[in-house]
């Protein structure tokens, strides 16, 4: 008899829990949660995940408990991560894309002059970032396999690894072999957001192109972890569907990865729908308020002591300054979301509008003002 140690698939998990469609049925359950359940959740040891605990923490009733949640989340984050915040910057390689995601500035249907960076241009961008102090780089691209191929990223990494201590990617969904190759080339992390865990909503916003395959997307993080990547980044695009049920599904996905791939570090990002070229707010009925974003961040921190919580430059400066005291461990600094944007800020539209245009140095100063140490490099390959 062979005991199999194959982990169950996230798709199956979500289906069994009723989190991948008809999520309205959770509304009554969430409404029915009272102060006793919220307090029980707060009384339990911070940092450990139970589904019922998260349910209570994201409930409408828990809104009145944000301050105690914030204190616990902050204390827990400081104990596990120290008084630090990691700073990184995105480097957009291409605004070409074959997908037609309704919410995205790079949607294939949106007419604008697309930009593709050559190896030389990409390196020039990298140099500017390096000079600003950045040592943690995220390579981003629309789904442009023809140009942003595994080979292209390999070549880019060969140069970049001399200037950056951590390189991660947020590009189209690749397969296990490709991820393994990229790991060999020096890429150590991959961000692959499900965008939404609701199958019907997913189908609505992802009309065409490889990204339209919900299951393929969902199985991505498992491949990323199996390929040996040290970090995998998950997230939902807040605003597509009800944030509460999205948080439940996201947590189950995170928990699955933590249990199944103990060598891999999981992080969660909180991209919130923002205005973009060709994208209007009126199309999105589930926009998330600031206090809801805060509740989501706090609830997740109280359930996952060691997961990274990442804040992008979608959020305005004043909000980011407050959010970093609530359990955030990594944030972007001085970002440009248009390819070539560090050299040529006006060159073409970005993937989304950046609402915090402070430079990396200004962000670092702000972080220090809050009693935190901005960490540029978290991992020094020079010793290995």
């Amino acid at each position: 008899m062979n005991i199999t140690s194959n982990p169950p698939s996230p798709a199956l998990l979500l289906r069994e829990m009723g989190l991948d469609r008809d999520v309205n049925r959770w509304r009554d359950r969430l409404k029915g949660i009272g102060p006793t359940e919220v307090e029980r959740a707060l009384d339990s040891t911070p940092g450990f995940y139970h589904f019922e605990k998260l349910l209570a923490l994201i409930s409408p009733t828990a809104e009145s408990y944000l301050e105690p949640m914030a204190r616990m989340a902050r204390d827990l984050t400081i104990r596990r991560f120290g008084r630090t915040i990691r700073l990184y910057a995105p480097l957009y390689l291409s605004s070409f894309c074959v997908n037609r995601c309704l919410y995205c500035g790079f949607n294939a249907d949106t007419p604008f002059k697309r930009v593709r960076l050559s190896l030389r241009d990409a390196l020039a961008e990298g140099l500017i970032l390096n000079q600003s102090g950045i040592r943690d780089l995220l390579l981003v691209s629309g789904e442009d396999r023809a140009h942003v191929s595994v080979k292209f990223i390999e070549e880019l990494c060969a140069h970049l690894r001399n200037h950056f201590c951590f390189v991660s990617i947020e590009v189209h969904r690749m397969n296990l072999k490709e991820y393994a190759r990229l790991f060999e080339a020096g890429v150590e992390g991959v961000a692959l957001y499900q965008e939404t865990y609701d199958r019907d909503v997913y189908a609505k916003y992802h009309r065409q192109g490889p990204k339209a395959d919900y299951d393929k997307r969902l199985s991505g993080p498992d491949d990323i972890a199996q390929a040996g990547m040290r970090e995998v980044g998950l997230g939902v695009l807040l605003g597509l569907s009800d944030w509460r049920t999205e948080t439940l599904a996201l947590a189950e996905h995170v928990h699955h990865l933590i249990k199944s791939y103990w060598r891999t570090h999981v992080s969660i990002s909180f991209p919130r729908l923002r205005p973009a070229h060709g994208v209007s707010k009126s199309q999105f009925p589930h926009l998330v308020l600031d206090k809801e974003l805060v509740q989501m961040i706090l609830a997740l921190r109280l359930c996952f002591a060691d997961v990274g919580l990442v804040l992008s430059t979608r959020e305005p400066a004043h909000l980011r300054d407050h959010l970093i005291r609530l359990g955030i461990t990594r944030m972007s600094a001085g970002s440009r979301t248009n390819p070539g944007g560090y050299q040529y800020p006006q060159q073409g539209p970005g993937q989304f509008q950046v609402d915090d245009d402070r430079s990396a140095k200004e962000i670092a100063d702000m972080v220090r003002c809050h009693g935190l140490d901005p960490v540029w490099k978290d991992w020094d390959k020079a010793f290995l």
Partner: protein
Amino acid sequence: MDMLTLAGRTFRSRLLLGTGKFDSNETMTRALDASGAEIITVALRRVDLDNPQDDLLSSIDQKSYLLLPNTSGARDAEEAIRLSRMARIATGIEWVKLEVTPDPYYLLPDPVETLKAAKILVDEGFVVLPYINADPILSLKLQDAGTATVMPLGSPIGSNQGLHTRASLRIILEQARVPVIVDAGLGLPSHASEAMEMGADAVLVNTAIATAKDPLGMARAFKHGVIAGRLAFLGGPRAPHLQASSSSPLTGFLREE
């Protein structure tokens, strides 16, 4: 009903009993009955040719109990594998409690040889229950290799000192994908309760019962201790209350909107 599931089999009792150190087979069988245990460990030893009638198995109804052969005495992976195969050929039982203890003083398990043996035994189709020090990384590696459980020690065999390894046990319990059976060093029913309250799936007790003044009484006590601990765990124990600290509000900015 709350059942223990190990390798696809279910059990009512979360107390496993070791059969060593009893003063007689008779005491052992009576303690076994008092404990409510359904799984018992046995060792393989050379037949005492001067005393060939002394036969443990003839005292045990194999239909009522799951016999779990252990590889005690093995000092390396090869010996453990050899003992496992011996046990299987004689009884057809594919379950084995893997114990590799090269140090005869403390009988602490060798992590390297245990992992080595576990991989081979899993490949040969055994249901492997490895006895280890409370090492979280080793636990994960054994689970990756396909063992049915992990069995971290509370304190060295026979020391009766309780859960010295509790900090590490907590991590193992948090990260485990398989049932965790705390084995070794449990000297009192309260130790067993504590392990169950922490979330252990089961405990294994031998010395504390076998060498008690009243083994039957102690067996009964452990039975209740395990049940109590499990009920407490299921009831949802609360963490010690955190003091509210008076610092400036972290979420005040939300009300400024």
